[in-house]
């Protein structure tokens, strides 16, 4: 509840509307503006709790990363070329996700749908490369059951991959909702939350490619 709503004394909702008009904002504007902040902030809190979830997976990986049980270590398994392509895909998709957000705010349909489509293609390419990498490792006998290191690796990278997969579904949903319902305030709020989610996944990937793949290669 916002401060203005909390400050309302005995009068009900209709009285509050009159005051919003008096302050130069229509009731609709004032309401939409504050709700965008509240919804965005709530989703930001969720994303921070998601980052904490990833930190727990990462701590597990960091503790177990040397426990290869005689099996392959990171430098025997990681393909730097693929990781570089994955990173480029996700970083570029984050750029286009931002552009899609600008397009939605400006109600510029070509920019919004074009940028969202490119974001989807790049995200799907990232996920396809990751699945290929997983399949390749399992085929070599380096599946999650091989060692503590590999269990933690698959859990950590797989958790990120699941998030990217969910994000791709969400992305398609947002494109469909804009087509079906237009740039309504509630749709724009969902697009804001999606953009926050996608950028956060990219931030998490920065930690993963640096500290899991690159450090694993040099160790």
């Amino acid at each position, binding site marked *: 509840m916002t401060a203005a709503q909390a400050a309302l004394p005995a009068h009900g909702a209709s009285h509050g509307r009159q005051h919003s008009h008096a*302050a130069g904002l229509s009731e609709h504007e004032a309401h939409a503006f504050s709700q965008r902040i509240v919804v965005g902030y709530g989703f930001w809190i969720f994303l921070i709790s998601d980052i904490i979830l990833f930190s727990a997976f990462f701590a597990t990986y960091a503790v177990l990363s040397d426990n290869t049980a005689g099996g392959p270590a990171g430098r025997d398994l990681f393909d730097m070329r693929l990781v570089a392509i994955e990173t480029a895909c996700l970083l570029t998709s984050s750029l286009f996700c931002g552009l899609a957000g600008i397009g939605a705010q400006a109600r510029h349909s070509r920019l919004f749908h074009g940028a969202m489509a490119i974001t989807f293609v790049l995200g799907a390419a990232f996920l396809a490369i990751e699945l290929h990498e997983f399949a390749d490792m399992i085929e070599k006998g380096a599946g999650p059951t091989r060692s503590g290191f590999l269990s933690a690796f698959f859990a950590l990278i797989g958790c990120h991959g699941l998030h990217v997969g969910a994000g791709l579904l969400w992305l398609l949903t947002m494109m469909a909702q804009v087509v079906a319902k237009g740039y309504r305030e509630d749709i724009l709020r969902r697009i804001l939350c999606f953009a926050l989610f996608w950028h956060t996944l990219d*931030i998490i990937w920065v930690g993963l490619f640096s500290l899991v793949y690159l450090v694993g290669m040099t160790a």
Partner: protein
Amino acid sequence: MSTTTTGSTPRSGNGHGGNGDGVNGRDGGPGAGATDNNIKPAVESRHGDVAPGDEQGADDIGRGVRGYLLGFVLAAGLTAVSFYITRSTLVWAPSIPIALSVLAVAQMGVHLVFFLHMTSGPDNVNNLMALAFGLLIVMLVVFGSLWIMSHLNQNMIPMEKLMQMQR
């Protein structure tokens, strides 16, 4: 919530709509109708915050796009440096993990500023405080785990000795 006193004044009849019914129960009374002035500052104070991910004054498409492009170039540069130093002899080998961590933190900062529009301005205090608390927990979880587990590891009987004892 408001059902206790709403009967006392006819104007509060639609307080059930959800828009402020939390306060009606306490302040609501026949004499509480003359507080019109305390609404205005509250409405103005709504401008004091910005949603996470929103950039203030970025209604201009060109300006917003330039911000994202600048962030992208910086992030791509930091990524390229990270990949480069793992293969080259530019950085003293034992310190490469530290260098990679520093570069990763720098790139996360670039993402936060240019993609998520985090600033140190007063309109972003709430977003930044939530992030700071999250980072505190992240540090406790990661470094706490590493610290405790390395101590346990050091104090454990070496594996070979354990095997001998089991025989």
